[in-house]
């Protein structure tokens, strides 16, 4: 009897272990079931995909190189586009071996460690604030104007950024340092995708109407949808039903599809979709997960929108593709933070309201998208330039000086832009009011320029005397 009980205990242990092993094996392979393996809370940037470990740990046997590859699979393009001031190649050069010993910046995770919520600071940085000092402790020898400055102040107040200095480099500050609050002709750049598609001979671009429709029999659209499509840029550019509703199936034959997804949009809007998939709106789709839902967000969202699923159509609306709606109303349907709630009382909204009412000039209004999904000049894979909407809403967000060039300076002077973005309270009020402080970097750059010119003039005078 005792012996039977002994075996029973063993059997129970075996069964329990087997069940546990089976559950762990299932969980480790199943996105959204991997919570048990989480070593610590991940950053705001990655929390949406935290339950798909393989998004970052796809190649565990490659060690740190595998992690680095995962970082670059999403972030390489933006680093290239921003002319990264500290590219990896700067640190792999043997002459910088001593620098590497101080800070191994060959790996993103040296400065941006994940799962370390207790030491994570803004922009996902997990190093102490004075990381610049590790390599630039003798900066005052090169730049005497920097004498006495705190090493925690380099990256604050619109002076320096580790990666992106496109709006902060000295000659840029000098060139744009004299502007006031508003430019003489404040407006946004125009998009011209149709012209680009015609120029590249991807489309003939001839407008079509309902009588030219090719999917009537297969899709049997209701008249309302036909009318909506007829008024879009799609119809104006000759994009017929088949342009979106026809795709090759698994057997490589063309088939009609009722509800196209973002992969169909990439046919003409490849870069826009790529941006969407890189940002917080589409990153779950990129990882093959279910679409992002506002209810999953860490930022305040409206409860009424909690279960909405984010795809291209969530903001653009199938068939209507109303970019004005996508630029404001779509955002306000979900977002519910202080900055968003303050928008309709802001001078930016007043301008937007004027434009959509037909009183303001085209491109003079400032919508949510104007700043967060901005129109930017982009070099296409064909090495052509076109203005497109950057659909990665995070691309210019942190640190916010990244917004200065792509957004603010369409309308405002550089000094005003830097000052406004450095004023957290003003940002929270959605820029209603004036910046509280003036950022020093432009003054310092102009003084350095004056000193340089004086030295040059003195040198030329010496030469003349000789």
């Amino acid at each position: 009897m005792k012996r039977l009980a002994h075996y029973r205990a063993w059997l129970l242990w075996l069964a329990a272990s087997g069940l546990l092993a089976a559950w762990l094996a299932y969980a480790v392979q199943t996105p959204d079931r991997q919570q048990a393996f989480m070593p610590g809370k991940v950053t705001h940037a990655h929390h949406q995909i935290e339950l798909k470990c393989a998004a970052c740990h796809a190649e565990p046997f490659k060690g740190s190189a595998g992690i680095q590859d995962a970082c670059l699979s999403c972030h390489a393009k933006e680093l290239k586009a921003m002319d990264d001031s500290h590219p990896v190649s700067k640190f792999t050069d043997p002459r910088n071996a001593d620098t590497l010993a101080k800070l191994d910046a060959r790996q993103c995770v040296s400065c941006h460690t994940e799962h370390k919520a207790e030491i994570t600071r803004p922009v996902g940085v997990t190093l102490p604030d004075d990381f610049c000092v590790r390599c630039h402790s003798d900066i005052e020898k090169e730049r005497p104007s920097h004498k006495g400055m705190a090493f925690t102040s380099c990256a604050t107040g619109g002076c320096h950024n580790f990666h992106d200095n496109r709006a902060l480099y000295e000659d840029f500050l000098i060139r744009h340092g004299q502007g006031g609050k508003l430019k003489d002709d404040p407006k946004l750049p125009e998009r011209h995708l149709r012209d680009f598609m015609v120029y590249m001979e991807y489309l003939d671009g001839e407008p079509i109407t309902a009588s030219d429709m090719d999917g009537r029999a297969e899709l049997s659209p209701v008249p309302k949808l036909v009318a909506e499509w007829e008024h879009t840029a799609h119809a104006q550019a000759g994009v017929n039903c088949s342009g979106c509703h026809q795709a090759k199936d698994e057997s490589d034959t063309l088939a009609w599809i009722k509800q196209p997804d973002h992969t169909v949009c990439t046919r003409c809007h490849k870069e826009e979709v790529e941006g969407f998939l890189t940002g917080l709106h589409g990153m779950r789709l990129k990882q093959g997960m279910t679409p992002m839902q506002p209810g999953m967000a860490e930022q305040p969202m409206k409860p009424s929108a909690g279960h909405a699923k984010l795809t291209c159509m969530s903001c653009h609306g199938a068939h209507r593709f109303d970019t004005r709606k996508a630029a404001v109303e779509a955002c306000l349907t979900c977002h519910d933070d202080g900055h968003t709630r303050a928008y309709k009382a802001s001078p930016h909204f007043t301008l937007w309201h004027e434009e959509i009412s037909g009183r303001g000039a085209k491109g003079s209004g400032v919508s949510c998208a104007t700043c967060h999904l901005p129109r930017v000049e982009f070099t296409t894979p064909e090495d052509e330039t076109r203005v497109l909407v950057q659909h990665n809403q995070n691309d210019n967000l942190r640190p916010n000086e990244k917004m200065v060039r792509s957004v603010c300076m369409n309308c405002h002077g550089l000094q005003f832009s830097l000052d406004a973005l450095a004023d957290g309270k003003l940002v929270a009020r959605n820029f209603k009011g004036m910046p509280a402080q003036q950022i020093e970097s432009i003054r310092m750059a102009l003084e350095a320029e004056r000193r340089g010119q004086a030295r040059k003039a003195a040198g030329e005078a010496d030469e003349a005397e000789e």
Partner: protein
Amino acid sequence: MRKFHVVSSLVALGVAAAFATPAHAADWDHKDIADALHSVMEADRIVYTKLIVNRLQNQDKVIKASEHWKDDKALVLPAQMFRYGAEHVAEKGAKFSYSLLSLWPVNKQNNAKTPVEKAGLEAVLKGDPYYTTETLGGKKYYTAIYPDKAVAKACISCHNDHKDSPRKDFKMGDVMGGVVLRLPMN
């Protein structure tokens, strides 16, 4: 007199043979490989400087070269052209590395840093390459430093006029810096 010519020719041939690169690449040593790599770098650098920058900026005055070439819609500076190439090579995972350094750099990052760089950049001022070995980060390298000369007016005018340039009296043909090339030895 004729005998002297024969002797001197033989001596010259002997000297050339002693220093010449072996006919078979398999027999090349570190110096031969470094010299070969540098000959390509130097040729491309001279071609870009003379045929693109100096011709279009200084001679034909069609377009300027600028450090901020993207913003200024201008030509990439020859030093940047060289650096971007070196970065491409590094990104491709090449085992060797190279950079353009100077005792008088406009960009302070390009100052001599290691003891070998300091000694080598001084040595190449006489016009000949400098070869040595050095250990960096625990790894041993064969390091070759080649003089980099002002081959066009564009070189000297840009450096002499730049507000961050520590030296403003460069003349044509001056050694302005050096190409530092490193091959790993173990």
